[in-house]
């Protein structure tokens, strides 16, 4: 028997992180974009990634990661990785995995020959991007399409999250970001209200979760609206199982009470919102008294000064209502006296109109809509109105119902009532956003142009997407197919879609040859997809399968890392470096972090030899299209990078001295180093050491760049717009429709209320172990964790009362039929008290099909097999829950 000491030495177990070298990176497992560091060491003679940790220097995720962030490193070593270009074996059908390996030259040559064979003109192509493309390659993707004349990008976060949700908040705040928008300052809030969000907090967005947990520890009151007891709802002090789709009614009742009981931040409403603006009623519409310039930008508003009793003119674009156009101080009145007239018109304030509009939204009314007791709604309104700081979470994923934009907008209105923007416990804008806003305001003053990609908030989508919508922006005179479809709809008297930014609206028709523009078919014949998986993440799967397999579709190219369900439908697959392997072509802001910071990825391990970075692939295509010069010019124009530097570095890449990724990376480093007064080497060294460079701390930024208090926001008026001028513009442009009512309205979900015993409302949500809209489900550790919770994560949640009526038990396979579309899926039941009896729930995380995805294929049921193609008319947000389902055993 050995001595105790020997036994102890023998037992000393080394762990993976011992003796590693840490390389800074950014997690790619969801759009929270946490700062991480990758531990690498040499194993079997090869530099290998063995552990990931949150980067402790990160102002975003504060050294933490979720389960996906931890397990993500296995993606690098997925045996099914795409490691070599693949070309479809001729005669095989899209959807079949039947490819032959090829060289890059051959793959590029194949693409070019197919484009020629099908005579694909620039507008007959579309790019399709996942969130990775938006976050990391927006400057390249936008420059690429504008220099090659391709007016089409379909991007998967838009109709699901960014346009279909955030845009609702943004109408009020003027904010907008690729991906993501504002950090809710949970840790300083005393009262927190969450609606239609599990993904954004507990399931799991680490940057938000670290802050939410602080709130829990400090004892903040948390109220969660959710038809089921999600991970987030489980942490609530009060779980309110609201009837699906009626959250807007709940918020309107809160607003009703808060306006009537003076439970709002009066000073904030007076100074920083358009509540005191004078308006009149014209043909049933509330119209502010304002003047505008030729481009439609407001130049003045009118208010009644509480002190002098005079009507005064306010500037058209400003952060404050406390100074009039002549520079004189004033205190605008929230209400004018009864019978007040101006130039013979009966005039009231927006505030008074909002009082009138909300008169009917009583707690008793809301009880009818939401199924929550009126007394509870009233109590929550009082608690929320009387507690400061009170916070309503802005939400993350959107979609679901036609009313989603309205509901997310009402959440922002509620936040405005408590004055919580850029204040402790409120909605905090990111450091990057503040920087852009400052630069934009400076340029505006100096009469200078701002590069598109530096435009703050809503200015960016309005300008960038506006280019896609305007035929005159393109030498061939074609707008995006989505806008062409919308124009065709309107010609037929249908509503169309006002702002189909990066949307798939009309794509199927364009492929089938049914979309007409200027009397000719507007066809889409080729798709270039980057990190996108539309077969799983758009609705329904059959629509995209039809698009991809249609005989008119001449070419499908997929850039990806793993053999996703969509890659199986490609003709050419171009293997991409994954996030652990690649140096990024750019420096980035640190997501929604409130400090102004810079970050990027450093290659931690050698990329698979035959894989390439997206920048390299796009450059090769630009060269193939004969658009290299234009591409470089557009990158320079959009990003503000020095053109001579781009040309010099790209020149070295065309000579084969470096990759295109390295070329753009060094331009990016030079650009930012110059702005910071550093050398590129110093900047690189700091980032390599720390992963994140904080340029200006939040506290400093708040001293001179807080929105509302110091800076106007990118809404048309610069104020927080409780009455939306942008929506009012839609009314002028399109005629009235409740969807774009600029005031406070309720849109009930279009759901059958009289249901049979086997008919249910339908809801879905996220699990903490798999990100939605990523090709990352094929992870052995995440799958093991998910399978251990098979019932909760992969089952159809159904209440015991209804389950027993239908003779359903946990584990039984049931059929779920969409009562609207007839789509049917099979899924195992999970009988649970954690859901409303009239509602069923399933997660959106599972059900991949490609058998090459060894761990995830065939596990669980895919959401998009049950959801039909239904979109709302502002941004073509998917209406993913606006139906009922029948459940049978």
């Amino acid at each position, binding site marked *: 028997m050995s001595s105790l000491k020997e036994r102890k030495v023998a037992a000393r177990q080394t762990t993976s992180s011992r003796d590693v070298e840490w390389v800074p990176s950014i997690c790619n497992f969801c759009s929270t974009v946490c700062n991480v560091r990758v531990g690498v060491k040499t194993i079997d003679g090869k530099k290998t990634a063995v552990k990931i940790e949150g980067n402790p220097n990160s102002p975003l995720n504060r050294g933490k990661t979720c389960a996906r962030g931890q397990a993500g490193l296995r993606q690098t070593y997925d045996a099914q990785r795409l490691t070599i270009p693949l070309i479809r074996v001729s005669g095989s059908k899209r959807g079949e995995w039947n490819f032959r390996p090829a060289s890059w030259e051959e793959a590029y040559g194949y693409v070019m020959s197919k484009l020629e064979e099908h005579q694909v003109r620039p507008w007959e192509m579309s790019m399709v991007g996942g969130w990775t493309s938006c976050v990391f390659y927006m400057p390249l993707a936008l420059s690429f399409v504008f220099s090659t004349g391709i007016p089409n990008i379909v991007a998967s976060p838009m109709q699901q999250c960014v346009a279909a949700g955030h845009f609702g908040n943004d109408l009020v705040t003027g904010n907008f970001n690729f991906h993501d928008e504002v950090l809710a300052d949970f840790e300083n809030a005393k009262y927190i209200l969450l609606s239609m969000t599990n993904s954004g907090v507990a399931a799991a967005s680490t940057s938000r979760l670290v802050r939410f947990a602080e709130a829990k520890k400090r004892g903040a009151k948390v109220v969660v609206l959710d038809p089921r007891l999600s991970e987030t709802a489980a942490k609530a002090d009060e779980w309110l199982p609201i009837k699906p789709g009626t959250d807007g009614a709940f918020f309107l009742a809160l607003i009703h009470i808060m306006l009537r009981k003076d439970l709002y931040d009066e000073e904030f409403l007076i100074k920083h919102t358009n509540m005191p603006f004078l308006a009149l009623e014209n043909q049933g519409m509330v119209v502010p008294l304002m003047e505008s310039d030729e481009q439609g930008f407001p130049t003045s508003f009118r208010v009644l000064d509480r002190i002098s009793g005079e009507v005064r003119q306010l500037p058209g674009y400003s952060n404050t209502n406390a100074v009039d156009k002549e520079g004189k101080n004033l205190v605008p009145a929230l209400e004018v006296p009864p019978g007040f007239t101006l130039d013979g018109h009966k005039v009231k304030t927006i505030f008074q109109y909002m009082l009138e509009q909300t008169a009917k939204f009583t707690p008793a009314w809301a009880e009818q809509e939401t199924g929550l007791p009126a007394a509870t709604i009233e109590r929550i309104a009082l608690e929320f109105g009387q507690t400061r700081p009170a916070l309503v979470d802005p939400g993350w994923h959107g979609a679901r119902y036609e009313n989603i934009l309205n509901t997310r907008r009402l959440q922002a209105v509620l936040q405005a009532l408590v004055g919580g923007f850029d204040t402790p416990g409120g909605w905090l804008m990111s450091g990057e956003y503040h920087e852009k806003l400052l630069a934009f305001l400076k340029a505006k003053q100096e009469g200078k142009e701002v590069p598109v990609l530096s435009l703050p908030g809503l200015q960016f989508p309005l300008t960038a997407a506006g280019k896609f919508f305007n035929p005159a922006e393109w030498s061939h005179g074609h707008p995006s197919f989505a806008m062409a479809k919308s124009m065709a709809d309107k010609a037929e008297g249908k509503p169309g879609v006002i702002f189909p930014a990066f949307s798939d609206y009309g794509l199927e028709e364009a492929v089938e040859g049914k979309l007409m523009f200027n009397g000719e078919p507007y066809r889409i014949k080729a798709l270039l997809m980057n990190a996108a998986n539309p077969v799983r993440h758009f609705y329904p799967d059959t629509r995209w399968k039809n698009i991809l397999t249609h005989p008119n579709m001449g070419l499908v190219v997929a850039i990806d890392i793993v053999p996703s369900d969509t890659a199986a439908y490609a003709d050419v697959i171009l293997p991409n470096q994954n996030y652990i392997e690649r140096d990024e072509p750019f420096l980035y802001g640190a997501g929604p972090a409130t400090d102004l910071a810079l970050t990027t990825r450093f290659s931690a391990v050698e990329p698979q030899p035959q894989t390439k970075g997206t920048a390299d692939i796009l450059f090769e295509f630009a060269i193939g299209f004969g658009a290299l010069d234009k591409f470089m010019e557009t990158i320079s124009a959009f990003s503000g990078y020095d053109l001579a530097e781009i040309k010099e570095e790209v020149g070295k890449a065309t000579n084969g001295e470096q990759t295109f990724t390295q070329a753009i990376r060094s331009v990016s480093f030079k650009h930012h180093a110059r702005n910071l007064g550093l050398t590129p080497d110093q900047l690189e060294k700091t980032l390599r050491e720390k992963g994140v460079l904080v340029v200006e701390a939040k506290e400093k930024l708040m001293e001179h760049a807080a929105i509302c208090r110091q800076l106007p926001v990118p809404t048309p008026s610069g104020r927080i717009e409780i009455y939306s001028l942008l929506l009012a513009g839609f009314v002028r442009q399109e005629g009235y429709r409740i969807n774009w009512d600029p005031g406070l309205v309720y849109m009930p979900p279009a759901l059958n209320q009289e249901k049979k015993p086997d008919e249910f409302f339908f809801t879905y949500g996220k699990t903490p172990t798999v990100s939605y809209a990523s090709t990352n489900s094929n992870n052995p550790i995440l799958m093991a964790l998910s*399978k251990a919770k098979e019932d909760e994560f992969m089952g159809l949640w159904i209440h015991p009362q209804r389950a027993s009526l239908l003779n359903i038990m946990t584990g039984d396979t049931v059929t779920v039929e969409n009562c609207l579309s007839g789509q049917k899926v099979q899924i195992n039941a999970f009988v649970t*008290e954690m859901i409303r009896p009239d509602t069923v729930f399933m997660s959106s995380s599972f059900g991949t099909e490609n058998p090459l995805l060894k761990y995830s294929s065939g596990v669980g049921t895919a959401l998009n097999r049950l959801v039909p193609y239904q979109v709302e008319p502002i941004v073509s947000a998917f209406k993913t829950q606006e139906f009922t389902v029948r459940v049978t055993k």
Partner: protein
Amino acid sequence: MSRYGMVIDLRSCVGCQACSAACALENQTPYWSDKWRTKVMDIQKGEYPSTGRYFVPTICMHCEEPACMTVCPSKATFKSDEGFVLVNYDTCLGCKACMAACPYGARYVYDKKDVAQEKEVYGEASQHKKVHVDKCTFCQDRVTRGLEPACVSTCPTLSRQFGDLDDPTSTVGKAVSSGLAKPLRPDLGTKPRVYYIY
């Protein structure tokens, strides 16, 4: 010498399983066989609409009076200098007496299949080269390097805290001495060094 221990705050744990994933990667535990050193129970109680859902991470309690140690015939289970209850992989017979004795279900067998699979996944860097009974080590290798255990270091809600229970200024010390954090089943007399806030 520090008396290390862990405090798990059930008020903030959201059941995200980052702890399980971090542990699996740091310690090469056999996730392929659904074996974990730390798991998170998802407990549902009560009737709608008053249903409660509770996330309870489970882990070895690193008892001061470990029931598993006294029954180990080969003395493979022992207490390290730091007071961690550990298993010597070389001398463990795999007899499972400790598994039967542990009241907290903290142990599992790293069996032949697991050893083979581990070799396949991690190559020459594999940590478990032999069949043995496996359990949480309180990440001794990290702690002796001045780091927090992997599960603690990643927990996005800071629900897992690690430190010196005897240090009245440490987070864990405060939580325990104030009575906020309590051990599980103190009646068993094993004197756990893992405490829960609930």
